[in-house]
């Protein structure tokens, strides 16, 4: 009986620690250094950035492989600074390593190189080429916390995500028209 109580107490303490950590990370993320740096990157790369909605976006690709008793699951992660208007979208690939944020040339999407776009209400945007083949899907979340090495930033972007959702719908309408 004593061991059960100790076990429950340990679990409760771990839960409280996790909850406190998540709350602290969320508070930090409202105007975190990563958020500011990502906006600065977008500002550096894209002219007239004030006309765009800038958000932190991620992309995940999950696949299964293997045979017999050995199954391998592979999840790939990509990270972007996304800047969007009703007519165009820039995705700036980001890389996080040792506290540094690196970036490469932005990828530009508009009616000229897209055949279709689907914008879902939770900040999920899928882009298709002229042959209606999927190019990629990005996910914009209100809350991003440093959970592990594959979730490397504390960025809270509630208002920006709402704005992105609205604009991405208009963007999709423009592409699909």
């Amino acid at each position, binding site marked *: 009986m004593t061991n059960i109580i100790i076990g429950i107490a340990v679990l409760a303490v771990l839960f409280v620690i996790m909850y406190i950590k998540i709350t602290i990370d969320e508070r930090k993320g409202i105007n975190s250094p990563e958020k500011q*740096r990502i906006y*600065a*990157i977008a500002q*550096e790369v894209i002219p007239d950035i004030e006309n765009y909605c800038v958000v932190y976006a991620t992309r995940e690709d999950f696949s299964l492989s293997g045979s017999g008793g050995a199954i391998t699951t*592979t999840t*790939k992660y990509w990270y972007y600074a996304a800047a969007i208007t009703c007519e165009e979208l820039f995705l700036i690939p980001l*890389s996080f*390593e*040792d506290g*540094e*944020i*690196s*970036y*490469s040339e932005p990828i530009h999407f508009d009616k000229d190189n897209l055949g279709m776009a689907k914008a879902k209400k939770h900040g999920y945007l899928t882009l298709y080429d002229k042959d209606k083949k999927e190019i990629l899907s990005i996910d914009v979340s209100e809350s991003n916390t440093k959970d592990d*090495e594959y979730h490397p930033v504390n960025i809270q972007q509630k208002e920006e995500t709402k704005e992105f959702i609205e604009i991405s719908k208009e963007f999709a309408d423009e592409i699909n028209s």
Partner: protein
Amino acid sequence: MKLDIDLGKKLTHANANIQLIILKISLRFLLVSIIIIAGLRSNPPATITPNGAIFGILIILSVILWIFFPLFHLNDYIIFYENGIEFNKQKWSFDELGEINFLNVKTNTSFFTRKYLETDVKNFNITYLKDTKKYFNKAYLKTN
């Protein structure tokens, strides 16, 4: 892959992670030691036959090879050039490599994560290299 291709200017490079190699050797040595000590204490050998001795020597040699296997990676390196990479004396251009991703692979048979540079040609095992991604970013990306 061509043996003698011009990849342009050398940008950065990453060498073997000696601390990781030493750590892995130490952990393997520790594991083997625990197994041997536990085995000898619970079941000490009574007599040693010639065949048993030969078998024992083969086992010992295999175990030594396994313990010190990470030393084979002491000379691992990767060089990042303007137009491609050189990995352990082999060169590839970016045209051949295609899209490059960094993969971390964890399995239930090891405590350690294996790291790969995933390309269209093959996945380069960069587990024993130090700060590969950092030098890759330094070479090809801009840093804020």
